[in-house]
């Protein structure tokens, strides 16, 4: 048998030969002692490789296999609880931001009431120290739908004359109070806001 014959025999064993070639090899295996011995050797080697595996596979016990595998798999992913989500959200930058927001809110809530500048302040008025708001009774005298500033009273503080102006924004709503220096007290006639640019 040459190398080509050997290869043909290998293909014959695998059933990979064309029918005509397979018939020819089958005839040689049946009649030629050399072909017969080679065929027998290959068949036996295959059987001897398979036999112990088949035998062991028949007695294999897979009972504990899944438990062994499952025990080493990563934990299944589940939806995080509210507490876990909160913890994940409250990272240091977020906490700093929240603290800053809380501080700003506390400042706004506790700071003194601002005294905004009038919509059209008189050119001669200047900033003056903050004073207490006008009494309710005085405000009640103002018309409910007033659109023009209403001078409630003039007061003197630390030697300068100040005019207290009250302007209701809407009936029964917020009242904006302006403190303005009287024109004769400022001297230079320049208008100036009190302490805040934005009336509350």
């Amino acid at each position: 048998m040459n190398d080509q014959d050997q290869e043909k025999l290998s293909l014959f064993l695998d059933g990979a030969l064309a029918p005509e070639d397979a018939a020819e090899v089958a005839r040689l295996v049946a009649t030629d002692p050399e072909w017969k011995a080679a065929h027998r050797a290959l068949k036996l080697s295959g059987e001897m490789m398979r036999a112990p595996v088949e035998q062991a596979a028949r007695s294999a016990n897979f009972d504990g296999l899944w438990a062994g595998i499952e025990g080493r798999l990563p934990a299944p992913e589940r939806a995080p609880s509210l507490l876990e989500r909160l913890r994940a959200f409250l990272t240091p930058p977020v906490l700093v931001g929240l603290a800053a927001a809380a501080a700003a809110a506390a400042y706004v809530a506790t700071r003194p009431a601002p005294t905004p500048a009038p919509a059209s302040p008189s050119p001669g008025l200047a900033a003056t120290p903050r004073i207490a708001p006008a009494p309710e009774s005085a405000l009640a005298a103002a018309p409910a739908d007033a659109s023009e500033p209403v001078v409630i009273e003039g007061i003197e503080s630390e030697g300068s004359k100040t005019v207290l102006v009250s302007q209701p924004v809407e009936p029964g709503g917020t009242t904006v109070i302006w403190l303005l220096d009287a024109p004769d007290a400022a001297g230079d006639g320049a208008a100036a806001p009190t302490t805040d640019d934005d009336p509350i």
Partner: protein
Amino acid sequence: MNAAPSASKEEKNAMSSMETPDAELVARVREGDRNAFRKLVERHRERIYRVALGMLRNPDDAMDAVQEVFIRVHGRLTDFKGESAFGTWLVRVTVNYCIDRQRRQKTWDARFVVDNEWEGVSEESPEHQLVNAQIGEALQRALAELGEEHRTAIMLREVNGLAYEEIAEVMGCPKGTVMSRLHHARKKLQVALRPFLEEAGERDLADRAGEGVRRRE
């Protein structure tokens, strides 16, 4: 090509109509369904065990390999593109794992062949058993002397009954290379076993002749 011992076409059709396809189970596993993975394990564990047993030659090592392979596969399911059958990919992972393990052990231990293979033929005469044990040892040496690629190819074909195309996919080589490796491996095995077979062949002929004489008597 000779098929491996497996279910008939009708049985396969019946099975496929009843069972959830591998691809669907794989998709479910990717979504975190552990029960789907368990089904895949139960479906393929015996085949993987046979592949590992054929290569590692030790039942305990083979069972250990099955566990390791499935754990690896679970972690690498994102690598599975579905270009080949899941079962074939699984065999490929198994073969690679076993080759790595063999390389760590440095030598290929084929004692399993000698220790177990003739248990099933114990009804034979002591003389036959002795010859068979000698043949087993010769086979062991021949297999151990084969290169890793040739031994893997012959094991996948003879023990696991994989088709040429499957072996090619598992080993990542062309089909022609698989055919060449099988031819090479078989030639070596045949040379190793021939002396014993020639002797056994003569004895068989003598036995048959003796039976003929006894019948005539």
